């Protein structure tokens, strides 16, 4: 990764991503947490572009920001009386401590390992990706699509209100 531009981009993105992920942790208002989450997603998308995967970056924005974040917002709206509280549970302290421990371990592993790295970024276009998905990885691809369908149907069935179920039963 050469040049000042990418380096600068990395540090900016890292700061953006991590700070907003921290924001998710500390913000008490659930809505604010979602906004931080979105910024964090955008930062990760920037990382993807930086890692020469622009298509995936765009997909990240479309799916995470355009779909998942909106879904989360919807879910918050649909659960009004549960409050917008994003407070901590009694597991908070051990959870955070454990996260720190895991972080330490991971950082140790990362720095301890001698990574062999290639200098040149592989040139992967969206066409290559599509080719791979539909030839080598076709079975996982199909399974993923089946999974999506199942999730779709499952979610619809889950959120049906009793009246709608009654209506369906009548038909």
């Amino acid at each position, binding site marked *: 990764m050469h040049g000042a531009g990418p380096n600068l981009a990395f540090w900016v993105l890292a700061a953006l991503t991590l700070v907003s992920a921290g924001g998710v942790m500390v913000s008490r208002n659930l809505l604010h947490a979602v906004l931080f989450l979105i910024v964090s997603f955008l930062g990760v998308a920037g990382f993807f572009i930086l890692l020469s995967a622009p298509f995936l970056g765009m997909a990240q924005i479309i799916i995470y920001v355009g779909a998942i974040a909106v879904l989360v917002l919807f879910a918050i709206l649909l659960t009004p009386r549960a409050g917008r509280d994003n407070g901590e549970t009694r597991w908070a302290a051990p959870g955070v401590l454990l996260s720190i421990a895991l972080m330490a371990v991971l950082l140790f592993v990362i720095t301890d390992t001698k990574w062999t790295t290639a200098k040149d970024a592989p040139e992967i276009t969206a066409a290559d*990706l599509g080719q791979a998905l539909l030839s080598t990885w076709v079975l996982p691809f199909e399974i993923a699509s089946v999974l999506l369908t199942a999730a779709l149907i499952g979610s619809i069935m889950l959120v049906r209100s009793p009246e709608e179920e009654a209506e369906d039963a009548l038909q």
Partner: protein
Amino acid sequence: MTVGLEHFLVVGALLFCLGLAVALSKRNAIGVLMGIELMLNAVNLTLLSFSRFQDTPHKVAGQTFVVFVITVAAAEAAVALALAVSVYRNRQTVDVDQLNLLKS
């Protein structure tokens, strides 16, 4: 200082641990879900970093995995949020502290 694989891995690790902390500590089920999404993102980042920096014959594999992870994340989010909404319908709360029917 040139940014290399380690830097990306560190960011990924930090993001993962933040996500883990969120997932373990938040009371609101939707908050927990957000933590899980963060963790998934961190994993994606790590996968892509390896794909970008490691010298392997299967260059596309990393990106393919990311595609699958994104797909699964979308499915997971949809189902989880549907669950949260239907739990809310039944119990008027999504507080995971109170969702312990398993407990006798």
